[in-house]
């Protein structure tokens, strides 16, 4: 597995994708174009998911190049700190976009401007700016042609220095996560609570679509999804924090990466559900009604992938050190 290559492949998405998303969002404003707005609200969570994978791959990329002459550890740390800060705002933007999408569903006319959309606008702008900084600091590591001598000095301009103050030091974050075994136990505990909530809420929706307990109308169990997303959010946060605490351990583990792949596939599956007519075909089904084949396929895939995620997560411990460094 070539982590440097993977990182270079993925990093385009959170940087450029967010610009595209924000662009579409802004363009949708004057004409109140619902389609463009919806597209941007779909792009943000997608980029948020990929941003996490990008962040994870960075650790492996660091491992691949840090012994090269001319590569500065300090620059890598600066880039990683910038990435951590940008990721926080990216994830919040993604979450707010999902909230805005949820609020807008089922409305016949375009949703009028509301607080969720204001929040998405604000956070997406900050995210785009921070991501630009991540890109620049990343480029500074290995592109001598763009470094104009500024990189080594303490950051020159006022804004840069101010942002710098908010960027965490990766080493300190790792230390914080691993100092107390009770904190680690708490994070793992919450990870299981999140999974129970997630499987419960998503599971019952999937099972209903597959024909279980047909007395329940599908649209009603669909209303449980925000709780599933709460479970997912808990697990995303505890998962990312755990990764930052033990990044080498997770990076060189096949089970961990396959788990991430399964999560990306789940994102695709969710997109398929809402962007094809699968959701609309089940939305108004009443008690006793059967879901169409596409919806059943999506539901079965969802259940399978979530159990795959649990399995792979459980086997992380067993698969430690299974990825050999490609050099």
């Amino acid at each position, binding site marked *: 597995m070539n982590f440097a290559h993977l990182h270079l492949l993925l990093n385009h998405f959170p940087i450029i994708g967010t610009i595209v998303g924000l662009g579409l969002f802004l363009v949708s404003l004057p004409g109140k174009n619902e389609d463009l707005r919806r597209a941007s609200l779909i792009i943000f969570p997608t980029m948020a998911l990929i941003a996490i994978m990008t962040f994870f791959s960075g650790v492996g990329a660091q491992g691949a190049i840090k012994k090269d002459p001319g590569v500065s550890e300090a620059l890598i740390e600066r880039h990683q700190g910038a990435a951590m800060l940008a990721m926080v705002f990216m994830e919040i933007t993604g979450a707010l976009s999902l909230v805005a999408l949820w609020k807008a569903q089922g409305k016949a006319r375009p949703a009028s401007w509301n607080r969720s959309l204001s929040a998405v606008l604000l956070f997406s702008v900050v995210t785009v700016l921070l991501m630009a900084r991540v890109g620049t600091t990343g480029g500074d590591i290995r592109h001598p042609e763009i470094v104009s001598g500024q990189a080594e000095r303490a950051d020159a301009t006022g804004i840069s220095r101010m942002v710098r103050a908010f960027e965490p030091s990766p080493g300190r974050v790792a230390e914080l996560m691993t100092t107390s075994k009770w904190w680690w*136990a708490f994070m793992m505990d919450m990870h299981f609570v999140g999974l129970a909530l997630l499987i419960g809420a998503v599971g019952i929706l999937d099972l209903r679509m597959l024909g279980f307990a047909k007395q329940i109308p599908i649209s009603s169990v669909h209303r449980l999804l925000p709780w599933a997303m709460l479970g997912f959010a808990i697990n995303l946060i505890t998962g990312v924090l755990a990764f930052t605490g033990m990044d080498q351990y997770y990076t060189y583990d096949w089970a961990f990466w396959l788990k991430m792949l399964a999560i990306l596939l789940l994102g695709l599956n969710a997109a398929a559900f809402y962007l094809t007519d699968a959701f609309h075909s089940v939305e108004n089904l009443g008690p006793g009604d059967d879901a169409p084949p596409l919806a059943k396929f999506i539901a079965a895939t969802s259940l399978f992938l979530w159990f795959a995620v649990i399995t792979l997560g459980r086997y992380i411990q067993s698969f430690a050190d299974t990825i050999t460094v490609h050099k």
Partner: protein
Amino acid sequence: MGPPVFLQAIEDTGFSTWLRESESPFAFYFILLFHTFGLALLVGANAVVDLRLLGVAQAIPIAPLKRLFKIMWIGFTMNALTGVLLVLAYPTKTLTNWDFYAKLTIIGFAVWVMQKLKNQVFEDASLTDVDRMARGASLAKWSLVLWFAAITAGRLLAYTYKYLTYPS
């Protein structure tokens, strides 16, 4: 005075040793995996019922949720069986750990609440949803608290044990 010798006797059996030391992916981690599946089914299904009784997603009719109890029992059975195997794999680690007994006690209460909830809320087919929520809200709240505590107690087992295997 160390741990009771019978713990070492269990650990020395071929089965226990295999579970602990085998490199096969079907040994310890496989059992632990199904323990997690069981948890997901049991607590997941129970959480959905509890949340509904507490007023979440009121569009869902309560009566059909009775079907979920079957899923909860499948999860519970899975966990009871895998739980026994896990104890057989690490008897000293588990049975000398106070947290393990706390976990079993909490689970005992949680299952008792689960049964009580089923009887009070789901047995009478003539009740309205409003009636069911009134009868079940308090039990639902306790159910959530107890399962959260059970997961916590279980998760902390990895951090509270005194002996991994019988001290030699």
